[in-house]
C-alpha cells in the first residue's frame, strides 16, 4: 500500500527561526495615517522609558513567516482529524462568509439597542433552536467554551440549592469523565466524588444509588458517555439524583450522536451545555475559540446569567434585570462571532439535516470500529458504540512493547492525524476514535488500512513506529526537557 493522506510538508530552510530572528533594525511593516491633530504628551511619570522590543520586519516578512507556520500545521481542511470527544468535522465555509459580514464583525458590544436588532434576533432564534435540540426551556449563549459552560451550570446548581436553603457539598462524576468536570466542580465550591463504571463501560447504577444522599448537589454526565456508549439506564440515573433533590448536568461533548434521535431534557437532565466547536462545526482555531451555550429546564431559568436576550413584540433587547441570576460569565455577551457560525450551521441543516448528521456520525463510527476491532479491540466490546469508540492497543503493547502513542506517531507518517490517545484514563492504552459524519467511506477505509498496517509493522518493522514521525518538520519532541528547562519566550 502506498502512503496515503496529505502529510504536513517540510517548508523553507531548516531552522528558519522565529519572527524575531528576521528582525533588522530600522525595518518596518506597519503604516499608520499621519497624525492630523496636535500631538499630546504623556506625563513623564507614566511614560514608557524604552521601546517595545517587537520584531522589526517588513509586511512580506510577516506574510512569509506565518504562511510557513501555517504549512507546518494540520487542520481539518488538510485531512481526517479523528480526535475522540472533539467532533472534528468539516467547518462549512458559508459560516465564515456570514460571520465576516461587517454588520456582524464590526458591531460594538455596547451599542444602542436599536442598532443591534439583527444580532439580538439571531441570538434569540439560535437560543430557541438549541433549546429544541436539547429539550431545555431557556439557554444562555454567554459561556465562551464548554468548561465555562460547566462552571455556569455549577453556579446555577449552587444558586438553586441556596435559594431552597439547602447545604450541598458534593457533585458526582463518573470516573471516565473529562478533566474539566472535576476542575469545574472544585472551582464551583464543591467536592467531586467519582462514580465507578461497570465492566460494560456504563455508570454503575447500584453504586450511584448507594452514593446519593442529602450532600449531593448534582451529577455531571455525558451521554453518550466519555467512552462513546449510551447510558441505557439513564432514566434510573437521573431519578436517583432527583430523588435526593439534586440536579443532573449534561456535558454536551457528545451531542453529535443523538440529534433528532433523543434529547437530554427527555432523559431527565436539568442543565445542558453544548460545545458549538464540536457539534455545530464552528472552527476551533488551533485550541479556541469555542462557545459553550447552557440550557436549563424551566425551574432554573431565574438563575441564568445576565444579560439575556428578550423579545418584546418585534423588538429585541438585552435584559440585565434578573434578581436571582448568578451574574455575568463573560465580559460582554459571549463569543458572538462563533455563535453566528453556529446559527448558520443549525439552520442550514434544519431538523432533517441535523438528524442525518447524527445518523451518519454513528454509522461512520460503527463502520470504522468494525473494520479495526480485530486488530485493535474495543475496550467495551459488549456495548455498541455511538458516534465514537474506544479501542485499545494493550495487546499490541504486550506483544511488541510498542504503545498507542507509537501507533499515533506512525499514523502521522501515513498521512493522518491520529485519534485521541490515553483518554479516557480508565482504559489501558486507549485510542479514542471519532471519525464524524463528514468523512467518506473511502477515507475511513484508508484510515482503517493505515491502522492495520501500523499493527503489522509493529511486528515486522517496529522501527517505523518507534522512529515516527519522519515526515513532519520535527520528530518527537523532548517534553520532559521543555518542562525542566523552561523556555517560554525568545
Amino acid at each position: 500500500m502506498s502512503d496515503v493522506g496529505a502529510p504536513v510538508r517540510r517548508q523553507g530552510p531548516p531552522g528558519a527561526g522565529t519572527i524575531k530572528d528576521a528582525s533588522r533594525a530600522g525595518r518596518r511593516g506597519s503604516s499608520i495615517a499621519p497624525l492630523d491633530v496636535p500631538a499630546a504628551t504623556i506625563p513623564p511619570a507614566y511614560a514608557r522609558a524604552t521601546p517595545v522590543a517587537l520584531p522589526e520586519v517588513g509586511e512580506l516578512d510577516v506574510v512569509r513567516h506565518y504562511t510557513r507556520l501555517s504549512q507546518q500545521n494540520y487542520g481539518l481542511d488538510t485531512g481526517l482529524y479523528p480526535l475522540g470527544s472533539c467532533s472534528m468535522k468539516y467547518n462549512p465555509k458559508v459560516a465564515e462568509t456570514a460571520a465576516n459580514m461587517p454588520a456582524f464583525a464590526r458591531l460594538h458590544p455596547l451599542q444602542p439597542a436599536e442598532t443591534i436588532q439583527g444580532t439580538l434576533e439571531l441570538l434569540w432564534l439560535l437560543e430557541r433552536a438549541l433549546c429544541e435540540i436539547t429539550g431545555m426551556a431557556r439557554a444562555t449563549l454567554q459561556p465562551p467554551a464548554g468548561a465555562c459552560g460547566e462552571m455556569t451550570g455549577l453556579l446555577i446548581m449552587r444558586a438553586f440549592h441556596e435559594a431552597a436553603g439547602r447545604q450541598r457539598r458534593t457533585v458526582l462524576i463518573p470516573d471516565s469523565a473529562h478533566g474539566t468536570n472535576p476542575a469545574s466542580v472544585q472551582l464551583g465550591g464543591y467536592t467531586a466524588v467519582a462514580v465507578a463504571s461497570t465492566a460494560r463501560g456504563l455508570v454503575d447504577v447500584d453504586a450511584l444509588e448507594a452514593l446519593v444522599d442529602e450532600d449531593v448537589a448534582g451529577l455531571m454526565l455525558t451521554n453518550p458517555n466519555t467512552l462513546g456508549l449510551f447510558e441505557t439506564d439513564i432514566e434510573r440515573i437521573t431519578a436517583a439524583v432527583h430523588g435526593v433533590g439534586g440536579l443532573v448536568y449534561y456535558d454536551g461533548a457528545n451531542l453529535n450522536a443523538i440529534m433528532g434521535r433523543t434529547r437530554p431534557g427527555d432523559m431527565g437532565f436539568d442543565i445542558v451545555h453544548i460545545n458549538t466547536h464540536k457539534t455545530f462545526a464552528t472552527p476551533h482555531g488551533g485550541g479556541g475559540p469555542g462557545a459553550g451555550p447552557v440550557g436549563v429546564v424551566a425551574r432554573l431559568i431565574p438563575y441564568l446569567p445576565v444579560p439575556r436576550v428578550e423579545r418584546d413584540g418585534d423588538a429585541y433587547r438585552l435584559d440585565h434585570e434578573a434578581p436571582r441570576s448568578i451574574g455575568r460569565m463573560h465580559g460582554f455577551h459571549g463569543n458572538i462571532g462563533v455563535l453566528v457560525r453556529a446559527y448558520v450551521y443549525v439552520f442550514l441543516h434544519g431538523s432533517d439535516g441535523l438528524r442525518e448528521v447524527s445518523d451518519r456520525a454513528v454509522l461512520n463510527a460503527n463502520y470504522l470500529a468494525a473494520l479495526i476491532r480485530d486488530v485493535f479491540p474495543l475496550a467495551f466490546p459488549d456495548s455498541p458504540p455511538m458516534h465514537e469508540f474506544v479501542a485499545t492497543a494493550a495487546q499490541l503493547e504486550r506483544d511488541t512493547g510498542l504503545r498507542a502513542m507509537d501507533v499515533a506517531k506512525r499514523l502521522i507518517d501515513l498521512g493522518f492525524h491520529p485519534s485521541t490517545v490515553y483518554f479516557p484514563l480508565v482504559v489501558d492504552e486507549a485510542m479514542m476514535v471519532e471519525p464524524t459524519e463528514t468523512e467518506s467511506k473511502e477515507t475511513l477505509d484508508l484510515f482503517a488500512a493505515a491502522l492495520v498496517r501500523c499493527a503489522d509493522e509493529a511486528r515486522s518493522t517496529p522501527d517505523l513506529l518507534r522512529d515516527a514521525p519522519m515526515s513532519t518538520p520535527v520528530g518527537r519532541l523532548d517534553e520532559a526537557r521543555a518542562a525542566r528547562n523552561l523556555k517560554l519566550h525568545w
Partner: protein
Amino acid sequence: MNFTPHTDDDVRSMLDVVGVEAVDDLFEQIPEGLRLTQPLDMPLGVSEQQILDDVRALAGKNRSAEELICFAGRGAYDHYIPSVVWALAGRSEFYTSYTPYQPELSQGVLQALFEFQSMICELTGLEVSNASLYDGATALVEAAHMSRSAQRSRFVLSGGVDPRLVDTLRTYGAGAGYTIDVLAAPQGHGGVPDEVAGDVAAIVVQHPNVYGALEDVRAWADVAHAAGARLIQVFDPTSLGVLAPPGDLGVDIAIAEGQSLGNHLAFGGPYLGILAARMQDVRRMPGRIVGETVDVAGRTGYVLTLQAREQHIRRAKATSNICTNQTLMALAATIYLAWLGPDGVRELGEQCAAKAAYALERLSAIPGVVPAFPGAAVFKEFAIRLPVPAEEVCGMLVAHGFIAGVPAPWCGDDVLLVAVTERRTRAEIDTLAEAMGKVLA
C-alpha cells in the same frame, strides 16, 4: 442540506460490515420511551444561498461601525485591522485545527503561540505569559484564582475597575468563596488605601481605568506588597507603546482584554484574554503554556508544557478548569504586533492619546458638556458629563451617523465614556462635536 458524503450504496455496504439491517438499529440502546417520534420542531434544511439570504436580512437590521462612526469603547475598540492579519490568521491550516495535542503536526500553532507569549512579555515587561484566556474579564477571574491561598480569599478592587469585570469576578467568586471589596474613586481615579487587611489575596487596579484615566500603579503595588498580597493590573495592550509596562510598576499579574490587537469587535467576542506574570508564579498560571524544546535530532521545536498544572492531569486539584482558549485570537494579535513593530506600537499609542485629548477638548467646548473628572490624565478614553441623560444623547446621535460612546450609568445617567482610537480622524471628531452640539442645543 448537510455535508455527509454517503451514497445509498455506501450506507448499505457499511451497514453490512457493521452487521445491522438499518441505521435505526444503531440507536437501539436508546430506551424506547426516550426516542423522538417526531422531527425536531424547527425548519427543514436550506441551501447555502438561502441561509445567506436569511443571514443578510438579519445583518441588515444591524448598524455597525462599518456604517456608524464608532466612539464606543469600555474594553472593546474600533482600531484599524490591517489586511495582513486575517489573510494569515484565516488560513485554514490554522483555523480548522484543534488544540495541539500532536505537536509534530501542530508546529505552526505552537510556534505562533510561543511568539505570542514572547511579544506579551516584551509589551508588559513581565517574565511569563500564557497562551491566551477567554477575554479580559475572565482573565481577571483566573488571576484571582492564581492569587488566592487558604488564608487569603479577599480581593480589593480600585474604584476605576470596570463594573463588567467586577460583576464577572463576583459571579465566579460565589463558587470559589471570595470576598470582593470595591473602593471608591471620587476623582475618577486614585483612592489608594493606606493599607489592606492580611487576608487580602490581591489588589486589582485598572490602568488606564474604566474612565480612561491613568493610575499611580506603583502606589497601589506598595500597599499590596506591604500586606503580602499580589498586585493585579488590568492594562490596555495598545497603551504600552507609550505607557510604562506593568513589569516596571511592581505588578505581579497583568491581565488585559486583547481584542484591540487585530481582533474584530464582533459584538463582544471572540476576544482574547491576556495574562502575564512573574516567573515565580509560573506553576500557578492557568491555561496552555508553550515551551521551546528539541526533537530527537536536536532540532528546535515547540510543545505544550507544564501540563501537570492543568485540568486534564490534575483534575480537581487544578487551579483552573480552562481547556479551550482563544488561540486564533492570539494568533491574530501576534501577526498584528509583528506588523506594528516597535515604531508602530509607539505611534499607535501616541495617536490614541493625541486624538483622545483633541476630542476631549472639542467636546468639552460644547455648552453644558464638561469633563466628568477634570484634570485626570487620560489615554484613549475619557468621561464627560452631559446636560441630559447619556443614553438619550447616544440615541439621537445614531441619526447623525455616530456611536457616540458608552453611557456609564453607575456614576450618573449623564456620564458618557468616549473612546478615540488611531482610526478616528480629525474630521470625524469635529463632526461628532458639531452633531453633539446640535442635539444638545
